[in-house]
């Protein structure tokens, strides 16, 4: 299937490893990516809060460029992009007068109109179910040798469920299904659906760290070798801010954090140049050593 690929800010900058692993993996899963070039940030909840009408127009513009590719799906690789784009899309699809006003403004600045013909889906949803899932089982030929993987969903791929709606926000199953299809063992722990604290990690670091500690400590206690997340913001929080938790608690966690595309990528035998583990703050070596052990 052909999809319009929106990589968002982080995968363009600090999480380039997410972009490179997604691009390497997608064709193997039968997903043809048409990368959107003339697009901007989705606003990440911040523009939605600071300038809501500008947020709506920026997202309408992204949707319009996705529609112009002829694809009916806009694929995201970030929870926050997923919620922001889906929220704007629902408003534009269900309110003709609003879509007309916004489209008129898009045309004024030289962008295409938006006709409401695109659905926004996260990569996770494309491979957790149906044809994508069948392909996944073939692609993950190297397996994960029973690696204990703690799924971390993050918030904005589950809630609010009326806008996301792929799975039960209290009992999600998609990451577990993928981990198991790749030959890993999914670890269960209560904080897997809670917040990593990232949206306020700059403005309220102490509060955010109080949230971040829960998934790290719980997954470690549950025996996880590694955590996996579908969101680059959760990834940055879990991976880069983990050292601050260590300084605060005096404990050593050293919990490696993988992007979803990297976890599947390892099972699919992607190259190091595509996985780019050297870009992680917490070393992924223990995971790779475990997988290489006889």
């Amino acid at each position, binding site marked *: 299937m052909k999809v319009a690929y929106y990589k968002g800010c982080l995968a363009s900058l600090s999480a380039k490893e997410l972009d490179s692993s997604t691009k390497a993996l997608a064709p193997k899963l039968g997903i043809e990516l048409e990368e959107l070039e003339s697009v*901007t940030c989705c606003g990440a909840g911040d523009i939605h809060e600071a300038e*809501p009408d500008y947020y709506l127009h920026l997202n309408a513009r992204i949707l319009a460029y996705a529609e112009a590719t002829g694809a009916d799906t806009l694929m995201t690789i970030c929870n926050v992009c997923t919620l922001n784009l889906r929220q704007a899309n629902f408003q534009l699809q269900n309110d003709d007068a609003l879509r007309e006003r916004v489209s008129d403004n898009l045309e004024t600045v030289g962008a295409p109109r938006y006709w409401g013909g695109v659905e926004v889906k996260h990569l996770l949803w494309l491979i957790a179910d149906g044809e994508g899932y069948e392909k996944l089982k073939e692609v993950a030929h190297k397996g994960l040798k029973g690696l204990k993987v703690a799924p971390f969903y993050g918030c904005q791929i589950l809630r609010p469920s009326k806008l996301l709606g792929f799975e039960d926000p209290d009992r999600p199953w998609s990451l577990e299904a993928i981990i198991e299809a790749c030959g890993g063992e999914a670890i269960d722990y209560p904080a897997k659906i809670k917040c990593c604290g990232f949206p306020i990690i700059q403005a309220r670091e102490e509060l955010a760290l109080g949230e971040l500690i829960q998934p790290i400590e719980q997954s470690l206690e549950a025996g996880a070798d590694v955590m996996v997340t579908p969101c680059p913001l959760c990834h940055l929080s879990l991976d880069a801010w983990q050292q601050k938790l260590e300084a605060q608690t005096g404990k050593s966690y050293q919990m490696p954090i993988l992007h979803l595309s990297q976890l599947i990528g390892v099972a699919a035998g992607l190259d190091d140049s595509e996985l780019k583990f050297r870009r992680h*703050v917490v070393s992924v070596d223990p995971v790779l050593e475990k997988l290489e052990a006889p």
Partner: protein
Amino acid sequence: MDVALKIWRYDPDSGERALKNYEVEAPEWSCLLDVLDLIKDQVDGSLAYRKSCRMMICGSCGMRMDGRAVLACKERMKPIVESGHVPVISAMGNMPVLKDLVVDMSPFWTKIKNMKPWLETGYEEIPDKEFIHSQEEMNPIHKEALCIMCGCCVSECNSMESDPEFFGPAALAKGFRFVGDPRDRMKVERLEDYNDEHGIWDCTRCYFCNERCPKGVDPRDAIAKLGAESIAEGIDRDMGAKHANWFVHSARTTGWLRETELVPKTQGVVSAIQQTKFALSLAKRGKVPPPFPPHVAENVQEARALYDVVKTRGVKGAAGIVQGERALSRIEHTNHE
């Protein structure tokens, strides 16, 4: 039908906490509250829980079912019984447990009262003529006015778990109910109060409040509306507001988030310098993209021009969020069908 429940009991006198099993015969139309009434009536009269109206109006019977905050009078038991699942019932979170399923809501009420939840009309003597307000003028606070103060949103608020002083979703939704009221004359003073260090910018956007609210108030959206109104009024001294404003500035200059400058623009230069060691550890891994040359989106002039168009002909402040609510409520109705 036979209904089985597991209930977390708590006895404040002995301090004992225990998960107890119960089974009663209940009519097929029973909700969770009916089943609790039957248990209290037939099995154990000492079971403590709050209730009053039995019809989702009073907000008394908030509690957790399998870890989710619910109104006991809203949860039908038949599908659960048919699935064979035995739900675990416990007290709401983020509030101290007094006994069994009863929590101490005094911190909740203190936060609501701190919002000054009454109209400040700006006149002392009642004028001779009444003021007429149109439906359109009142629509912006329609959702927030639906709140029954049950505490389900607060129960699972992730920020409040970390900062118990956070005003929280219920109080802030109540705050917007007055900030957005065209009859109120204290909007700016209210926004100043709500921009407290434990106020609107404490929200981590986990969306548990929207997910749990049994009345469709969507407290997170109300918090975003307060943020939008604050920034529109120039109340942007909080680091949260500066963080949000930097995203707007990024979009209208380069199109993409100017990630590396986000720290000094949010926290100030001094704080950013104190973070140098941390920043270097990230820079070694390519996590601090150099700001020069800037990463500029293709056709960024369109995003810049859109900002000007929205500023001249767009809707301002919270109205930008309110405008989408009709469309969103349509999804809720579709989902219920």
